[in-house]
């Protein structure tokens, strides 16, 4: 116990991740996926839109790891570029939703009364409309594109974070160490920066990592239905959707992108779970 005292919480978190097997393995897989997709050109000499109608629908083998799709494009390459979109979708909207949720959650907990009521009712509204249907409304208004998918994911996910952040903040505000700080003359801002935010951080991190799988699954579902990301942009959901009619003759066409989605989601999921055990083994945040 004494040995780790010197490090501040950041290093402690990293060291704890190394010790926790689940966090280590899933962390490495995530790193691998990120490297594979960002440096895709190194791993494949095809580009993701290059059509080669001569050998369309080729089975895996001779130069095409996962074969080619209906327009003769190399499936493996498209998966790498599709993963970029999935990773972007996994991190950007989830981070923005976490930030928005945290801000509104803290506001709701700090300025009680009307603000609290309005924010919480807004969160209830978000939670009472199925994510998919709400995304459809957003996509109807803004048209199907990466940007509109990001916006709809932000709007869908902020509600839950706001609710959890609000309840944790309320509990923190009533704790004795905040009362001690106030009785020493500290102002609201000082209490927020010194006591509320540092103690909120673990909860926010855990919520963020647990929302990542949800974002990836939502985007891929929207793109699968054809109303999310539109061609020529590449998305794993879109690829799976497009290969539906070839499902029985060439199952790998659908299996490869869908399998990749599963691998990404699983690794983020285990990483989030492990992080939750490390950060607050006692309390159950969900």
């Amino acid at each position, binding site marked *: 116990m004494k040995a780790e*005292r010197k490090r501040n919480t950041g290093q402690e978190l990293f060291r704890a991740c190394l010790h926790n097997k689940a966090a280590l393995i899933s962390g490495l897989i995530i790193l691998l996926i990120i490297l594979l997709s960002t440096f895709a050109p190194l791993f494949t000499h095809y580009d993701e839109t290059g059509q080669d109608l001569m050998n369309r629908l080729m089975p895996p083998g001779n130069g095409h790891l996962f074969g080619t799709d209906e327009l003769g494009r190399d499936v493996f390459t498209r998966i790498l570029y599709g993963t970029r979109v999935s990773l972007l979708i996994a991190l950007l909207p989830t981070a923005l939703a976490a930030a928005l949720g945290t801000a509104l959650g803290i506001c709701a907990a700090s300025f009680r009364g009307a603000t609290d009521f309005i924010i919480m009712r807004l969160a209830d509204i978000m939670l009472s409309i199925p994510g998919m249907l709400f995304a459809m409304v957003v996509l109807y208004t803004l048209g199907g594109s990466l940007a509109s998918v990001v916006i709809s994911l932000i709007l869908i996910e902020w509600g839950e974070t706001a609710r959890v952040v609000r309840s944790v903040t309320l509990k923190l505000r009533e704790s*004795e*160490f905040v009362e001690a700080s*106030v009785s*020493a*003359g500290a102002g609201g801002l000082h209490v927020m920066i010194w006591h509320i935010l540092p103690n909120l951080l673990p909860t926010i991190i855990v919520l963020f990592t647990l929302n990542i799988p949800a974002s990836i699954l939502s985007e891929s579902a929207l793109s699968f239905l054809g109303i999310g990301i539109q061609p020529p942009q590449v998305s794993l959901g879109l690829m799976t959707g497009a290969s539906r009619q070839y499902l029985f003759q060439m199952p790998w066409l659908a299996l490869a992108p869908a399998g990749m989605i599963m691998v990404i989601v699983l690794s983020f999921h285990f990483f989030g779970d492990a992080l939750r055990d490390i950060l607050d083994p006692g309390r159950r945040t969900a």
Partner: protein
Amino acid sequence: MSEEILISARNITKSYSLGRKKRHIAVNDVSLELYKGETLALVGESGCGKSTLARLLMRLIKADSGRICFEGTDISALSGRALKPYRKRMQMIFQDPASSLDPRLRIRDIIAEPLRVWRVCPDKTEMERRILDLLDMVELKESMIDWYPRELSGGQKQRVGIARAIALDPELIICDESVSALDVSVQAQILNLLKRLKKELGLSCLFISHDLSVVNFIADRVCVMRGGVICETADTETLYAHPGHEYTRYLLSSIPAIGDDPVS
């Protein structure tokens, strides 16, 4: 103990709403004085309003009615900037050592917080010296300055709480059940420390407890509270020798006698 009054309360009332019609009256028209250099105890069973009264005196919460005077000036109506100077002169030591220290801060930052809020120490080295000085006063090892609260025992955490409370050289220390959560041996060490510090620093102390034996050891005067009302105030010897109020007698009779006369 001088005759000068440090802090006094006049007809203080505080109530909380419980749903539409019912209101719970925590403190009901209470008046009391605390003299400079004295240890006044507020004793009573849970729910008698002693904690609420303490927080009213410290102006952590506002009373529904009544006046609070600190060295003659009425502070019941003050708030924000005007109230801040008085915060410096009254400090509180809390009950549960585990939840009164921020788990994310090291001991150095916990004790330094009041000093930082009031910018008492001009530079870092002065601040560090002051913190080490405070650690020494509460009999904690200097090496503990970098520890996190989770690495300390209950008694050690309470000592950090005391160091934080005396950091600003306050005139009044309010102990809200500060030893109730501790084991007997640790409780004795903390009681001795509080008594010694009070004498060395010339503090006045408002000691809140449900344990009449602890109050008998540490207090000069005792207020017995019940249902938000002070039913008796007397100095320690007279209260224990011949208690006036019937409730006080009932409290005293409930304490099992330890030692000489074994159970009949």
